């Protein structure tokens, strides 16, 4: 269908734009499926007028949510590390 052809063209264009190459057998096909899922999510989000922000394709568009989380989200904290609160910036009514 036209929409399938469009998605395939978009994926090819996205691969070139982001300098992506897949070496594994069947990897490109697997990535295309993920890309289509992400594209669908973006279109649904952007067509909803209740959302204030926009979403779009970028360098992460061939990753599943789990892959994205495991690679890029390395922030760690524990309660102890934020227990020694300083009063320097504590807000008081009338602060200027």
């Amino acid at each position: 269908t036209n929409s399938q052809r469009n998605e395939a063209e978009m994926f090819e264009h996205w691969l070139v734009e982001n300098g992506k190459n897949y070496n594994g057998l069947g990897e490109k096909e697997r990535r295309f499926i993920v890309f289509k899922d992400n594209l669908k999510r973006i279109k649904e989000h952007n067509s909803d007028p209740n959302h204030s922000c926009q979403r779009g394709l970028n360098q992460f568009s061939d990753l599943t949510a789990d892959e994205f989380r495991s690679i890029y989200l390395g922030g760690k904290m524990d309660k102890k590390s934020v227990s020694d609160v300083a009063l320097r910036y504590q807000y008081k009514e009338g602060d200027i």
Partner: protein
Amino acid sequence: LPDEVDWRKRGAVVPRVKTQGDCGGCWAFAATGAVESINQITTGELISLSEQELLDCDRTDNFGYIGGGAVWAFDFIVSNDGIVTDEVYPYTGNDTAACKAIEMPATRVVTINGREVVPVNDEMSLKKAVAHQPITVMTSAANMSDYTSGVYKGPCSNLGGDHNVIIVGYGTSSDEGDYWLIRNSWGPGWGEGGYLRLQRNFHEPTGKCSVAMAPVYPIKWKSSSDLLSPSVFKLVLLFAFQLISLVLL
């Protein structure tokens, strides 16, 4: 407090948005960003610092590309007697790199005196802190991968963060409301030129996407060597010459 703050306009943020690549080193980028800013605010010099030194060498509570927190990176910078520039110790995007021995006294080093925590779960205190300097925070960013523009209002967790970033300002959009201006480390191609605007003044104390749960900042005092910066030194010299000429006359 000012209605709007943007530390980029005051020259306290390195213009080039950095890219962490395929690496969980957000904590190192958040830490260097905050130190770059406090160094500029204190000394007037904007120097881009080395994330790679933190990733390779800070092995106390941080774990390189696997993850960490800016709070411990600040402790490392204090105990390490500073951090070098990224020109001296450039980013490689390679997690097998071992800590390079740097002759600290022989190279340009930026120091801090410590770190503190902003009162947690309090967006007004966070606003006051950001009015004084950029602040590192943890935020829940799992759903932000395809954000491109606007004020982000979710979905995300308001009960804990998974990504370390820096708040470099705040403001209010006429149609989208109050926001935090956040510098990310996913390159200039992500978001609004590498930046995110995140909903501010959320109805829960943790802040939207947990932004107010772990706000930390480095402290830097003006040192005696800063007091003798080239411009101050020129002024002192000029004053001395004028004094001598007055005495001779």
